[in-house]
């Protein structure tokens, strides 16, 4: 993918983001589409209720992935992929925080 070594005089490129123009454009277009889908579907009430939530969350997650791979060049990391592993752990903790809070607080009717 990244053939733009061009003039790089230092040999330690392992974490530098390269990417090509094509990659950025594809990423940008995909992001635009993934932002437009929920706008069109949800604001015009084409889908409702749970289905709408699913559409919203799926497009958001997909767009997050697009950003990670096309803009933040996560795929180019060399082994061992510490950054990738750390990201997975971080996301796992975020999910624990969000779902855990919803679960615990949803079951707690004392204060509400």
């Amino acid at each position, binding site marked *: 993918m990244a053939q733009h070594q061009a003039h790089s005089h230092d040999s330690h490129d392992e974490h530098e983001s390269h990417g090509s123009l094509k990659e950025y454009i594809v990423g940008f277009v995909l992001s635009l589409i993934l932002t437009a889908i*929920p706008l069109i579907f949800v604001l015009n009430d084409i889908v409702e209720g749970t289905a709408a939530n699913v559409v919203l969350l799926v497009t958001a997650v997909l767009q997050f992935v697009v950003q990670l791979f096309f803009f933040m060049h996560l795929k180019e990391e060399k082994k061992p992929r510490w950054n990738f592993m750390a990201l997975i752990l971080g996301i796992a903790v975020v999910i624990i925080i969000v779902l855990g809070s919803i679960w615990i607080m949803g079951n707690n009717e004392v204060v509400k």
Partner: protein
Amino acid sequence: MSHNANHAVQGHGHDHGGHHDLDALRQMGFWLFLITDCILFGTLFATYIVLHNNTAGGPTASELFEMPGVIAETFILLTSSFTSGLAVLCMNRGNKKGLIGWLIVTVLLGASFVTLEVTEFLKMIDEGAKISTSAFLSGFYTLVGTHGLHVSVGLVWMTALIIQLSKRGITKTTRRKINIISLYWHFLDAVWIFVFTIVYMMGVM
């Protein structure tokens, strides 16, 4: 322990640590910082989600949010993420002018994002929807405001880097700094996707 500062040996052959180089370390450190920031936002999201129905008689999300402005903010930030990527591309080609140019475009887009957001906040406050009105609004202002604060800090930082670039050009150090801030900028865009989805879209649905 004298500090012989003037031993700045030029062109230090192979680095003496042998097993690490500073730029890779810093990039990794910054990546880990971004993950802590992810968790910070995750906690704010969790709080918002738990409290978002507690409007305590105040305005609700669907009464309050005006989507056109938010949609504009979304596309502006998305575009600025793209332009910051273009800046990095210019840097990799050694094109200093292009690099600075795209960074300036990014700063301008970021600044208009912040301006729109501040205007939106002021309008809501004017309508009586204050941070102290309800738990929902406390969560809303804190979550969205924290993101806005991150963008604002990024603007100051990027401006400082533009000045450094114009003075020093593209060097090993400035390359690292630009790579790091572009990572930060993409990250803020990624966070905004979730603000947009969970706060605004699900709010008005």
